[in-house]
């Protein structure tokens, strides 16, 4: 049983503000989907390895070298900042309330 408190807690962890009137609905949807995926527990996977890349590729390395970025792309990335000061990304204060 998924409770409203659980949904609110998960939403907080996910940094999502959900409308209070949607919490109950979300709990019911989550319940229904989790009820469906619970059938996975029917399978015995005790000695089965996990799969990520079907081709078995793992630990693909390259030289640890900075390649730089072309200036045009750099300017475009900066232009997409919601708030900036010159070329710097402006970030709200982390530790205090913004009361100014």
């Amino acid at each position, binding site marked *: 049983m998924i409770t409203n408190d659980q949904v609110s807690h998960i939403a907080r962890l*996910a940094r999502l503000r959900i409308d209070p009137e949607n919490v109950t609905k979300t709990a019911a949807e989550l319940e229904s989907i989790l009820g*469906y995926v619970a059938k996975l527990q029917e399978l015995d996977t005790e000695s*089965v390895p*996990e*799969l990520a*890349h*079907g081709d078995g590729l793992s630990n693909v390395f390259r030289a640890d070298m900075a390649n730089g970025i072309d200036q045009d792309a750099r300017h475009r990335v900066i232009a997409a900042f919601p708030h900036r000061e010159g070329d710097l990304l402006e*970030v709200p*204060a*982390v530790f205090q309330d913004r009361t100014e």
Partner: protein
Amino acid sequence: METAINIATDVRSGKRTAESAVRESLDAIESGNEKLNALLGVFASAIEDAREIDRRIAAGEDVGVLAGVPIVMKDNMLVKGERCSAGSRILENYDAPYDATVTKRLRAAGAVLIGRANMDEFAMGSSTENSHYGPSRNPWDVSRVPGGSSGGSAVAVAAGFAPIALGSDTGGSIRQPAALCGIVGLKPTYGRVSRHGLMALSSSLDQIGPFTRTVEDAELVMSVMQGEDEMDATTAADGEGSKAERIEGAKGLRVGVPKEYFVDGMDENIKKSVLDAVAEFERAGAEIVPISLPTAEYALAAYYVIQPCEAASNLGRFDGIRFGYSSEGQTLLETYERSRGEGFGAETQRRIILGTFVSSAGYSDAFYKKASKVRTLIKRDFDEAFKRCDVIAAPTSPSLAWAIGEKFADPLSMYLSDIYTVSANLATIPAMSVPCGFVDGLPVGLQLMARPFDEASLYRAGKFYQSVTDHHLKTA
């Protein structure tokens, strides 16, 4: 709309100009898009790009195998300087700062990118109804969905806006809309096509692939897009593998028919269309092999654990700080919560909640780890089956195109529409949908699956099937 192969041949030989091909596409979009909502935007540089191709050809240059071919991109693939919204409000004003690898490769082969296609927000959905910009409509019946998530791309090809459109396929997002719109859609092997510049949804599942009318066109555009890319560490060096074999026709081809995909209670008309298609192979000398994929019934459950977990993680980058929609609160936390709460649509939020729940403390082993192990079982089923057959034939979608709104209120019923497609993503194998008939005037798709990096067998089977049928020649 002509095939890409014909357009490129004519443009390369000087029989027609790239500009005329692109103008034809833009005219079709101009007259048809308002009704279908397939494209969210047309690239203003398309005509100038086409003229540049014509200038280079006039100067004697070889511009590439896609000379002058108009191509539509899904709205989650970066084309430098163009808007790229992923169907989301959170990116409604976002312009791509660089080109995706596929963007670069298509252009290097002479293609002209003409616009960006509508999609379910961040590629989550099976109908395009999750787009912030309204649903696309199925050209065969505009009251119905085109499928999703790459619905706009499918409609663009089905409606004759372009001979090729790109989609991304995480759990069926190319094959299912291809089936519902009556065209070819290919999800390549995981690792075949670079995802650099594709907005990440579920990184262990996502692949880019084409929509086309003919299998030949899909093979052509794949020859340009595929191959290793240092910007995507999952790409495999075996990118040219499919050129090794060149067997044609169905004679001697072993076609596996999995009993788990033809169950009681499924749509009888779809079953008949698909089995009729299998009979075409048999008539031409293919060997039909009954096979079993016993773990298949668990695929959808595994998918709806793995996909939301990875999506929740990938979508963490949308924080209202670095790019995209930003809604300032009193605290940093509030800025995150408001930007994401207001910027993401309902389905995206649902998957983030689901993914966060199943990967949260105490649940991760029971869900994500378990599902990743089930993936191995699913892959083993396919490995076993492919010892006895070369391709597997199955339906692509359990239903025909449904009415807009019909499944929208019930997330689980929408998820069930991916039941035949998710296995290929989980097992990382290539799979393709090919039109195999009509029921009540609506298209049905035949899904063909093959061994990892054996797209060649899909091309062989698909080309044979299209050579003996004419479903793909019909237009809405």
